[in-house]
């Protein structure tokens, strides 16, 4: 087992450990203990590099997952800390900031605020626009934002773009009279 994981489980009550491969583990830490756990990993267990912070929207479970990827260059090990926030219907989940540990964390936090609506109070410049400019819709990376609908409503789509179900379309094109042609032919090829 990787260095530091025992500590996480014992001291910070971490759960749902998944060891993806040697040197990469995913583990869930409670929201209130997450920053303490990350600080512990950084200061004591040698996870000195913050690879990224990102989010995943589990809309059907009502959760907003934050992932902190920490890297230990000396031992070539990585731990991803998952933090499950209660997903709010309108954006506005809140999480403690870690910009005091890594100065570049503020940029990821700024991005998360903009793209997911997860707030990090006291993180410097978190309310400034980072990527989008003049955006007035809901944060676009949230699962319930329909980007195709938005694009169609906004950007004057040019006609002629059709989407087919590939399987049926292929059959129709190969032999429109006999929709089962392709399947039959394949079977025959295998048999012969």
């Amino acid at each position, binding site marked *: 087992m990787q260095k530091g994981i025992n500590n996480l489980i014992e001291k910070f009550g971490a759960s749902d450990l998944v060891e993806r491969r040697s040197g990469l583990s995913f583990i869930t830490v409670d929201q209130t203990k997450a920053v303490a756990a990350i600080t512990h990993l950084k200061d004591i267990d040698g996870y000195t590099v913050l*690879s990224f912070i990102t989010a995943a929207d589990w809309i059907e479970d009502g959760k907003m997952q934050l992932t902190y990827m920490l890297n230990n260059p000396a031992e070539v090990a990585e731990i991803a800390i998952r933090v499950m926030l209660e997903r709010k219907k309108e954006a506005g989940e809140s999480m403690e900031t870690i910009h005091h540990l890594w100065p570049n964390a503020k*940029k990821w936090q700024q991005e998360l605020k903009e793209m997911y609506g997860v707030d990090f109070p006291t993180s410097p410049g978190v309310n400034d626009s980072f990527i989008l400019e003049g955006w007035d819709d809901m944060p676009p990376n949230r699962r319930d934002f329909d980007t*195709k609908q938005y694009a169609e409503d906004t950007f004057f789509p040019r006609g002629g773009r059709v989407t087919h179900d590939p399987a049926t379309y292929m059959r129709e094109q190969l032999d429109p009279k006999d929709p089962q042609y392709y399947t039959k032919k394949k079977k025959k090829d295998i048999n012969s």
Partner: protein
Amino acid sequence: MNEDRSLYPEHDENGKPIIDLESHKFLKLWQGPQHPGITGNMSLELTVSGDEIVESKTHVGYLHRGFEKLLERRLFVQCMPTSIRLCVAEPDPNEYIVSTAVEELGGIEIPDNAKWLRMLSLEMARLQVLLRGVPGQAGTFALGLGYQWGNYLRDLILDSFEELTGGRVYHMYIIPGGVRGNLPEGFKGRMLEKLKLIDEFVVKIDKLIFQNVVFESRAKGLGHIPKEWVDKYGVYGPAARASGVMRDVRKTNPYLNYDQLDFEPHVTTEGDVYARSVVRYNDLQMTVDMIRQILDKMPDGGDIRAQTPNVLHWKIPKGETYVKCESSRGEYGMYFVTDGSDKPRRAHLKGPSYTHANALLDKLLINANIADTAAIMVSLATCPPEIER
């Protein structure tokens, strides 16, 4: 660059410089997005006092296409043509990380020959970037000659790509399950011919750039990254190696068959622009050597693809992973989450430019001359599309 800003301008109690634009002592200067010294479509908001930069802020988002949202709407196989456009200059690592993430979560093992072909394609991609990037460093100081020569050779490598994959810039060669095709007839011989040309070029570049008095005097001591900043600010790849920290995913977490190759990335301790360009210059030589080794050790023929489920109905069980590889700029990774459906739940790209161009660049540019911004940016190999995706 020294961090001591105690003399001028004055600072408030939080250590922030007091900048009053109305006093006419400072000038707000925008570099980019339309500016020839900017690597791609981004901009720097500089506050200058005379020729000296007092404060810098990076603005990105000019290339934002919402990839991470788009990938959530694509089948796994449809992710491939979309995701290669994440970073234009070097598309192959994108192919590699996405297809490896899909394979890892889908439980697919790829055949050995495919691994070698993937390595070949990745190293060729690195080679074409470095052929432009190494002389491009001198191009920021208006020495464009090496850039012209390098670009010609890059075009030859792109020709090889066309031969191998059919595509010039976007190859879509690495796909889930393996690669799209085997080596064409006589490819090895033609590639070795081109590598010979690159060997000559490497010698010329050394004379033109690295032994040039003016280049040395301008690049040495410029944009200094101390060793302690490597972890603090997230410095990767050649930039970290120039500051004396070994960061190379190929060496630390060997993927594909990189553990069977003989290579030693160059590490130096100066940490300035000159050191970074020397490290990348050595990378260029190393890449040429590695391509020779790959061509030598590659098996003659063999399976290039593992059996995958029907890609149109491919459902991958719930899981998450983080796959990374070494691009020419440093660690390049993909955080991939699946939820049991036929589309990814979340795909997050982590490129080295994100940390390089944001917090680190803002820090490095303080006290620098406005003439040097382009050099510092290019030495960090900033690629804006991977910042905003």
